[in-house]
């Protein structure tokens, strides 16, 4: 039996998914996700322990090509879409914090 989702669970997955949520959103999503997960419980009745999982409709294998030079996306065109650029690189906020 899969457990019901709690508000703490929702706050945890929101953090994992890098989504800042308001208190109101937390309440709302807890109710709504519980309802969807409740519907998904109909699967629990199935005896499928021995059934292999399917991740993809058709068997996939690696697709290789010759390692030949070919044109790639234009760098300036790509960088033009970025929120912040410096010296032909994507500029991002600080990753490491100061030592405490």
């Amino acid at each position: 039996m899969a457990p019901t989702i709690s508000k703490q669970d929702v706050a945890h997955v929101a953090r994992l998914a890098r989504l800042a949520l308001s208190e109101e959103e937390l309440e709302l999503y807890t109710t709504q996700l519980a309802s969807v997960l409740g519907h998904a419980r109909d699967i629990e009745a199935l005896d499928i322990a021995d059934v292999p999982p399917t991740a993809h409709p058709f068997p996939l294998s690696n697709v290789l090509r010759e390692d030949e030079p070919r044109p790639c996306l234009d760098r300036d065109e790509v960088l033009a879409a970025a929120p912040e650029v410096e010296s032909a690189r994507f500029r991002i906020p600080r990753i490491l914090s100061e030592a405490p």
Partner: protein
Amino acid sequence: MSGSPSGSGEGPAALSGLTSLSARAIAAGVRSGELSAAAVLEEHLARVERWEQQVHAFNLVTADAARARAAQVDAAVAAGEDPGLLAGVPVALKDLLCTRGVPTTCSSRILAGWCPPYDATVVKKMAAAGAIVIGKANMDEFAMGSSTEHSATGPTHNPHDLSRVPGGSSGGSAAAVAAGFSALALGSDTGGSIRQPAALCGVVGVKPTYGLVSRYGLVAFASSLDQIGPFARSVADAALALDVISGHDERDSTSLPGEHPSVASRLGRGAEDLRVGVIAELASAEGMAPDVSAAVTDAAEALAATGAKVEEVSVPSVRYGLSAYYMIAPAEASSNLARYDGVRYGLRRDGNDITEMYMSTRAAGFGPEVKRRIMLGTYALSAGYYDAYYGKAQKVRTLMIRDFDLAYSSFDVLLSPTSPTTAFPLGAKTADPLAMYLSDVCTIPSNLAGHPAVSIPFGAGEDGLPVGVQVLAPALGEPVMLQVAEALEAVAPRGEAR
């Protein structure tokens, strides 16, 4: 013409003149020089001008680029060249197909104004066939939804009744074709996002076999389920468009290798002696409206009257399709949408460090349905719950493929409703996500199995609005599937309310 509320006389679904022509008629006229692509385009643009404010099928109308392109097509014809199978045919592109230098937003704030640096393969193929892109069609944000109400640019309205939804997520594409804004449109279908809006807007919509059409340049939702396909006002037009966009593409490693036969050339054979199975579990699925159910019964009888062998068939695991889908698709989405991080493109909201920047960017950029699905998927994949939810859902996927294989050992195609109801009022299901998800109950199984399916209009419901009937086929069964769809189209009642 349709007898639906706005289908007769003046209304966005009442077509006339060049906007009522089929894609085949337009292409034939333009290629022979009897029609000019410019004249065809201007009439479609005039219709957009007249009705778009009420319908809101588009996030962007690319009138100037379309005029330039139409002039090129006409010049090519004048120079004795053949511009291609879709010469001068106006098409709408769902706004998740990358168009180089033209905004591609997925109806999301997080991609507002983003101009891709490359074209999707299907966009290149449409252009190479002489089609004229008229605009980028509205959709549920990142293709998550069944009503086109989850759009950052506002909802699309159903051309048959402006107070109702067009379905979704490709609602703008379906509405554009129903309203005569374009003769064809492209959409994408992850759990029914082509077929359900086609049904609700009274047009034809095809979800091809997984891998038949390249996904290169399709903004990803759930990669093992997504497939691009056409909308049209007839089966023959849909087949023509499918022939143009299908084929192996080395840029999509999941695209099927080898040559695939033309589907358009297989039409016109009728359904005589074909074995058609009516899926029992879907005919009585949760929330199935009696008028929709009756339309499927009528369709089955009409096929039998043309010589098809029609019987009921059981595909037991389709009952679990919805539950499996709403674990698998959000799981894949939570992974695919991790790329919207405010670093390389799209929206950025500032933060003191990078995690804060990610969190505020994604909170500001995504709408409520996308956040819901990302969290659902993250939860289904998270430690401790993986086996209970995602793992089980993948096993259900196996069961479904087995059940379909068994059914197709006795039948050439299967038949079901497309959507449990006709178009519902705007706002009716936005507060209850589960109620919205139930709209997809009949369309999801084909995505989980990777099989093709088509929705075609078959009369009207009690409310006078279009009803869609779905024909399903095994992998690469498009020729026989469209053959049966065309036979149904020939005997379909013309929009009289039940």
